[in-house]
């Protein structure tokens, strides 16, 4: 670098990094940071879109009190948690079975073909995949009920009754997100050197034992990663609920996401909606921190 070119060059050189990150910083400031703080501000107002703006007043934490004592919203938090638990459990278990199958050297020649077939569901828009499943779950003409009746059982009203509707929502999400877990877990299994298995087999260990005693501990960080990413995502479930059940029957399949949306845009109460959204954000942060802590403990 030349020193003698003086102050002009120095300023332009110092400004250079900001020229590169500038566009991104401007967009993130205007469309993420400002709206985030504005959202917190709105959550402190009695802001209703159907009322004139002159009636907007500060109400402190009233919106938070309203949301946290609001039965349907609290119920939706409970169901979102239950949904997340079962979806992620099935996701990771099935993804693991798939990854182990495809990682087996007996089928490894076909792994590529199966991988590209299996990732199709995760590339679909949730709206589209839910639409496809809506047709599958059709009460009278749907193939799923046809199969159930062929087995001699009674047809199920998939979107008309609470438990079947909940199961249907879980099935759709498991179908759409298991391929994601499979991809990450295949990458995880490939980090385990093959000769570790060989020496274990020579020592007389069986497959199940090798999996739980050797493979699982070696890829536990990948599993923690998949679980935490999936939990974050499952908590945000919105699209498939809106398309399949619209929260019904009654309000039994409403999730945090659909409740916040409906509070703000069907009941026009954007103040309470924002409070709900901030509560939602806090829940996500808490869950994330718990997982980060668990991952760190794992490493020690």
């Amino acid at each position, binding site marked *: 670098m030349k020193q003698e070119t003086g102050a002009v060059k120095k300023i332009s050189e110092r400004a250079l990094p900001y020229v590169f990150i500038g566009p991104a910083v401007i967009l993130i400031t205007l469309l993420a940071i400002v709206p985030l703080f504005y959202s917190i501000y709105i959550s402190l107002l009695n802001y209703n879109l159907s009322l004139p703006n002159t009636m907007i007043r500060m109400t402190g934490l009233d919106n938070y009190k309203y949301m946290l004592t609001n039965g349907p919203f609290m119920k939706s938090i409970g169901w979102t948690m239950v949904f997340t638990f079962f979806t992620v459990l099935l996701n990771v278990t099935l993804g693991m079975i798939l990854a182990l199958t495809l990682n087996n050297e007996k089928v490894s020649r076909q792994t590529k073909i199966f991988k590209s077939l299996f990732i199709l569901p995760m590339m679909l828009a949730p709206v589209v995949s839910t639409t*496809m499943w809506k047709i599958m779950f059709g009460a009278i003409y749907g193939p799923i009920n046809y199969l159930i009746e062929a087995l001699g059982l009674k047809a199920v009203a998939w979107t008309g009754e609470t438990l079947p509707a909940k199961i249907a929502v879980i099935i759709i999400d498991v179908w759409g997100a298991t391929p994601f877990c499979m991809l990450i877990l295949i990458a995880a299994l490939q980090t385990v050197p093959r000769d570790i298995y060989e020496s274990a087999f020579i020592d007389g260990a069986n497959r199940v034992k090798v999996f739980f005693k050797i493979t699982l501990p070696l890829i536990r960080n990948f599993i923690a990663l998949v679980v935490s990413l999936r939990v974050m995502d499952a908590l945000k479930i919105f699209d498939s609920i809106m398309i399949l059940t619209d929260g019904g029957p009654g309000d039994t399949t409403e999730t945090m996401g659909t409740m916040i949306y409906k509070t703000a845009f069907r009941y026009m109460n954007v103040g309470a*909606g924002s409070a709900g959204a901030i509560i939602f954000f806090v829940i996500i942060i808490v869950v994330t921190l718990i997982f980060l802590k668990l991952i760190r403990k794992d490493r020690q």
Partner: protein
Amino acid sequence: MRKQNVEKVILYLLLALFVIVFLFPIYWAVTTSFKSAGQIMKVPPEFFPSSWSLQNYAEVFTKHQIGTYFINSLIVSVTTTLCAIIVATFAGYGFSRFKFKGRAFWQYAIIVMRMVPGLVFIIPYYIIFQRLGILDTLFGLIIVYITAALPLAIWLFMGFFDELPTEMFEAAKIDGCSEFGTYWRIALPLIVPGIVVAAILVFLAAYNEFSLSLVLIFTDQNKTLPLGISGMIQLQKDTPFGTLAAAGTIAFIPALILALTTQKYVQAGITAGAVKG
């Protein structure tokens, strides 16, 4: 030997079962889209259509504006991808190449913004966009999607640029290459595979997005595919399976093309997006 074969049979049976589970819903939607109303309402259902009709497709193009939705979706996702990639490679290069005041702050801010759920933004977006007069415009939707894509894309590009050897940048500087020239002529060409990976992730996210568009767009003329399809469900209470299947099939085509032509990048992208991001 025999035990080996048994294992192989079990593995392939398992795979066959998974193929059915993962692909049957798609197969069912595609075949339903070619069935007539009479064929759809049949017990037992026709697992292979006895005759093929294009009636549902005629209907989604004439009665619904699926063509408009499709074009809007392409405009939004292609523009989002191009802009997000330009802005993010710029930022990724800036963060990777320079040490400057505020660097750590902005990197931290980007990670935090990735954690904020989209739902937190929809209410302020609605109010702000209404005041600015960009509610119900593709422009509004596009700038929102670009911003949503930035955190992950910047993070990925930072990683890609970090892997390039520092000596290369020094050599470029000695040869009199400006910083912009180094970015454009030396660094960018070297991370093209990474750009493809990030572009696919950004494209798919924009093409598939629903909740933000649900709040920001409401006239048919500006709707994207997911929003348009969701509208078709609410419009008619008698669940028009044939037209829904046709609309779903049309929306599925770009994903299928991407999956078949760029599967290597798609898989790499999803893995990188998760592990690095």
